[in-house]
Each structure stands twice: as structure tokens, then as C-alpha cells.
């Protein structure tokens, strides 16, 4: 019996509390050191479980020694391993980015570690109320992180995000209550074993629980009617927090959707074609997100709306529920986490160097910052899906899945979405490379952008190109995850 599952969650949590005590240690960069070593230790424990998990076995762990129906149990299988690896990788690079800017205090690192520990907890747990508690922990950490710099607009953004999400998640607790009254347990495996019988007896309860969960996870992942908190929260937050929000928090909502829908409703509802609703919502999100991104004036809001569009693309792959569809969806989750975080980092470097937020003030910036602009171009190619980038491979999988379904309408809408995304990002590249002179802002002192920010951005860009050229490494990571979802 290995202790790895709880160590992956508990070490960042312990480090989050330890960073408060580095005040007394008089080390110059104590909090950053503690945070970095905690994430590296967590990644090490994750890697020790890799041989067992990737050969389609699971590692179960009961907290406190109480066995499965009575206590909370953690389970590390292919899907959890994939998401944990993604979270720890992107989290480490977000930490590298925030190392550069010297004005982040201990409080910031503590909250970042709590957020990452909460995401790891969501991904590893097998108890549905435990998942709710970790989601709320992640949400509280993100509300405070968004308002880290006390600008007025950040506080309105955080308030709006808070009220919307909490009012919706009260209903998720109601769905847990209904599940408990129907099945008598909170363990996901026990519930999943009893749901087919309940579906025969009372189908309307299962429909109710499904719709509540769709809306609750939808507001976390940014489905179309529930996306309105994303533009402000992503654009007003400090840059590494924008990366955390767009790269990791939106994806963990998708993880919860994957886990809950395929485990609980796999044989009952999804077989009957409820996935078509998810495909429909995905297509509307894609076209809406890409279309709204086309008309944005601020750079960060443009990236936030483009996030909504890409999540729509992933939802199409999720709703198809075939092997190619899920492979494409999981691969695009991985790619988009890397690409969008890197795009937010590029935007952050540009904003902190020039002080401009609007796109039309950034004309001709390629002469001042050639490296960052070049990285932005490569990442834009990845988002649109042009070879040789990783975005091409994942979008190709999803389009292949739609081809196998032989549905012309979905194919047309997917290509329309890709076209709108291309138009949006080409407009940005055209602004960056425009031949007119770049006018500096009057009386603006650029913040010192050191090596760490550039390092994080270039590492992401390099990984995007490498994964695009050699995707088999990641595909071998995704296959066990898909086998968990579709046995």
C-alpha cells in the first residue's frame, strides 16, 4: 500500500501553511523556495505511481483507515493521473512566472499552493461531497487571488464571479442531497452501481440530478449561457492568476463533467443521446466565443473570450462520447491549458512593459519585443490549429470523431469556429507587426521584467511545438484515461 495519493494532495497544503511561517525564517526568498519544493515533491510522488497506473490498474487509498462506504477514499487511475500531471506541470511554470515579479508576498504563494492542492484533491477524490468541498476551497482561493492587486475593477470582477458561482453551487449541494436520499451513500462507485436501477424506477430524478450537475460544472468551465464571469475575472486578475484561471480552473470543471457523467450516467443517459445537448452547447460556445473575441478592444478580454470558444470545442469532443472524441477532448484540454497560459503570459509581459491594455495602442510592437511577439505568433498558430503545433493534432482528433459520426452540420459549425478563431488571432498578429511606429506611453515606467517571465513563456512555446511534432508521448498518456472513461 503506497501513501502516494494523499501525499500528492497534502504536501502542497502543508507547504501553504508553512509559507506563513517563513516570516520568522529571515530567508530572502523563503516562500518561493517552499512553494517550489512542495510542487516538485508532489510531482515526484506522482511519478512513482506512473508504472502502476499507466498499465490500467488503480491505486485506492482510504483516509483514516475507514473503508469505502463509510469513509472518504481516494483513487488514482488513468484519468486522475493525466489531470494531475497536467496540473503540476502548468502549476510549476506559473510559479516560475511569478518568481520573476518581486512584488508577490507570502500570501500569494500560500493561496496559489492552496489552489493547486484543491485542484489535486478534486482530481483524486472518489467521494462526491469531498469533491464539493475541494471545489469550494479552490473557489475561495481564486476569489482572493483575483483581487490580489487592489484595483477597483478587480473587486467588481471578483464579486460578480463569487455571487454567480456560489448561488449555483448551492444547487449542486441539493443534487448531492438527492443522490444521498436515493442511494444511501456518497461514494462515487457505490452510487454508480445503483443508478441504473434508480433510472428504471424514477427516471425524472436522474434527469433532475443530471441537469443540476450540468449547470454546476458548466459555470465552472465556462459553457455558453454561464460564461459571463470569465471576461472580467480573466482580464482584471494579475497575469499568473489569469493563467491559473484560464488554464487550470476551467479545466477542472471539465474533469468533473467527464468523471461524473461517464461514471454515473454512462450506461443510462449518455447511451440515449443526452450527449447531443452537450454537443449543441459546445457549438454555441465555440461560435459565440470566437465571434466575441473578434470584436474585443482589450487584449486580455480577447484571450478570455477565445478561452470560452476553445472550451466549446472541447465540449463537442466530450459530447460525442466516442473514443476519438474523448481522445481529442482530453488532448485539447492539455494543449489549451499550456497554450492559453502562455498567451496570457505574453500579454502580461507586453502590458507590464508598455502599460497599454488596448490592442490598437500596441501597433508595431514587434520592434520593441521581438521574442515575445514571435512566441505569440507560434502560440496563435497552435490555438487555431495549424500544423506543426499541438493544437492541430487535438483538433484533428475531434474533427475525425465528427467525421465518423457523419454529421455535416456539426462539421460546418466546427470549421466556422476555427475560421473565426483564425480571424481573431490574425487580427492581433497584424496589429503587432504593423509597419507604423510604436508610441510609448507618456510618463510610464516599465516594470522590470526579468528572466523568469520570458523563461516560462519560451518553455511553453517550445513544448507546444515539440508536442506538435511528436504527439505520441502524450497520446500514450491519454489512452489509459480514455480506457477509464469508456471501459
Amino acid at each position, binding site marked *: 500500500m503506497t501513501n502516494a495519493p494523499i501525499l500528492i494532495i497534502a504536501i502542497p497544503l502543508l507547504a501553504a501553511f508553512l509559507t506563513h511561517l517563513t516570516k520568522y525564517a529571515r530567508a530572502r526568498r523563503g516562500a518561493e523556495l517552499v512553494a517550489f519544493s512542495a510542487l516538485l515533491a508532489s510531482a515526484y510522488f506522482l511519478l512513482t505511481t506512473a508504472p502502476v497506473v499507466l498499465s490500467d490498474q488503480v491505486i485506492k487509498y482510504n483516509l483514516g483507515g475507514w473503508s469505502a462506504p463509510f469513509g472518504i477514499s481516494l483513487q488514482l487511475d488513468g484519468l486522475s493521473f493525466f489531470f494531475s500531471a497536467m496540473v503540476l506541470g502548468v502549476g510549476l511554470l506559473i510559479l516560475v512566472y511569478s518568481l520573476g515579479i518581486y512584488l508577490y508576498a507570502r500570501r500569494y504563494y500560500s493561496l496559489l499552493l492552496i489552489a493547486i492542492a484543491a485542484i489535486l484533491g478534486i482530481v483524486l477524490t472518489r467521494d462526491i461531497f469531498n469533491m464539493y468541498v475541494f471545489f469550494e476551497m479552490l473557489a475561495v482561493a481564486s476569489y482572493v487571488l483575483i483581487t490580489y492587486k487592489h484595483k477597483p475593477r478587480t473587486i467588481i470582477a471578483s*464579486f460578480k464571479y463569487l455571487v454567480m458561482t456560489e448561488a449555483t453551487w448551492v444547487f449542486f449541494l441539493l443534487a448531492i442531497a438527492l443522490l444521498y436520499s436515493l442511494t444511501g451513500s456518497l461514494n462515487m462507485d457505490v452510487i454508480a452501481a445503483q443508478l441504473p436501477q434508480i433510472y428504471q424506477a424514477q427516471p425524472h430524478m436522474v434527469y433532475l440530478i443530471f441537469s443540476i450537475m450540468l449547470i454546476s460544472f458548466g459555470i465552472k468551465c465556462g459553457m455558453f449561457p454561464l460564461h459571463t464571469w470569465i471576461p472580467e475575472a480573466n482580464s482584471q486578475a494579475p497575469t499568473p492568476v489569469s493563467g491559473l484561471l484560464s488554464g487550470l480552473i476551467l479545466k477542472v470543471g471539465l474533469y468533473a463533467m467527464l468523471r461524473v457523467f461517464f461514471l454515473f450516467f454512462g450506461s443510462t443517459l449518455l447511451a440515449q443521446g443526452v450527449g447531443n445537448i452537450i454537443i449543441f452547447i459546445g457549438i454555441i460556445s465555440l461560435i459565440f466565443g470566437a465571434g466575441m473575441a473578434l470584436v474585443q478592444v482589450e487584449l486580455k478580454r480577447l484571450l478570455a473570450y477565445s478561452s470560452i470558444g476553445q472550451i466549446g470545442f472541447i465540449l463537442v469532443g466530450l459530447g460525442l462520447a466516442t473514443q476519438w472524441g474523448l481522445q481529442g477532448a482530453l488532448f485539447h484540454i492539455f494543449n489549451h491549458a499550456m497554450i492559453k497560459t502562455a498567451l496570457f503570459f505574453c500579454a502580461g509581459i507586453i502590458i507590464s512593459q508598455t502599460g497599454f491594455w488596448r490592442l490598437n495602442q500596441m501597433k508595431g510592437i514587434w520592434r520593441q519585443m521581438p521574442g515575445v511577439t514571435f512566441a505569440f505568433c507560434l502560440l496563435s498558430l497552435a490555438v487555431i490549429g495549424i500544423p506543426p503545433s499541438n493544437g492541430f493534432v487535438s483538433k484533428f482528433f475531434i474533427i475525425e470523431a465528427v467525421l465518423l459520426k457523419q454529421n455535416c452540420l456539426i462539421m460546418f459549425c466546427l470549421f466556422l469556429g476555427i475560421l473565426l478563431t483564425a480571424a481573431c488571432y490574425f487580427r492581433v498578429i497584424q496589429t503587432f507587426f504593423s509597419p507604423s511606429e510604436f508610441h510609448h506611453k507618456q510618463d510610464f515606467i516599465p516594470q522590470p521584467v526579468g528572466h523568469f517571465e520570458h523563461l516560462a513563456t519560451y518553455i511553453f512555446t517550445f513544448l507546444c511545438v515539440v508536442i506538435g511534432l511528436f504527439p505520441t508521448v502524450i497520446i500514450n498518456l491519454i489512452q489509459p484515461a480514455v480506457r477509464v472513461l469508456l471501459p
Partner: protein
Amino acid sequence: MGFNGLTVGIIIILLGLYGVLTRKNTIKMVMCLYIMSSGVVLFFVSLGYVTDGQAAIFEDGSRLMVDPLPQAIMLTTIVIGLVITSLTLALALRIYEEYKTVDVRDLINKQND
């Protein structure tokens, strides 16, 4: 159907939701969020009720007890409600400090600056 804890809990949740949607004062929105949370607590605890059951504390002799699991879960939920309420109040106070208003309609205009 009966006027038991389940029905009253749902009514309280819906009243709280009506308040969050329609009230323009940020402090009233905070209060209605907490009312929604209390409604869920009432609903869930009433689910665990066993007719003629005693409190779920083990003393000598076996008796009929109510289900203790909803009560343990609702403790955690009340803690989460406390944290969210205090955080929202802090944000509402800071909004008042910056903009000198608690009306949400003014904030919508200021957001587009």
C-alpha cells in the same frame, strides 16, 4: 406532501434565490446567499430523519437513532457558508470604499470604464 423540513427547505432555497436575483443592494445579496445555504442545510438534515429516532450519540443500550451522516456533512457546509459570507462581505465593504455606493446598478455602469 406535508409541511415537513423538506418542503420548507426548498421554499427557503427558492426565496433566497429570488433575493439574489432581484435585490440591488450588495449587502442584501450577501444575506440572501446565506439564506440559500441555510435552506440546503435544513433540507439535507431533514432527509436523515428517522421517525421516533433519538439524537445520534451513543449511550448505553441500543435505541433508534437518526442518521448522523447528513449532520456531519452539514457542519462542513455551514463552515463553507461562513467563509463565503465573510469573504463576500469584505468584498462588498471594499466596493463601498472605492465607489461609495452599494447599489449594483451603478456598478454596472462603472464596470465599462
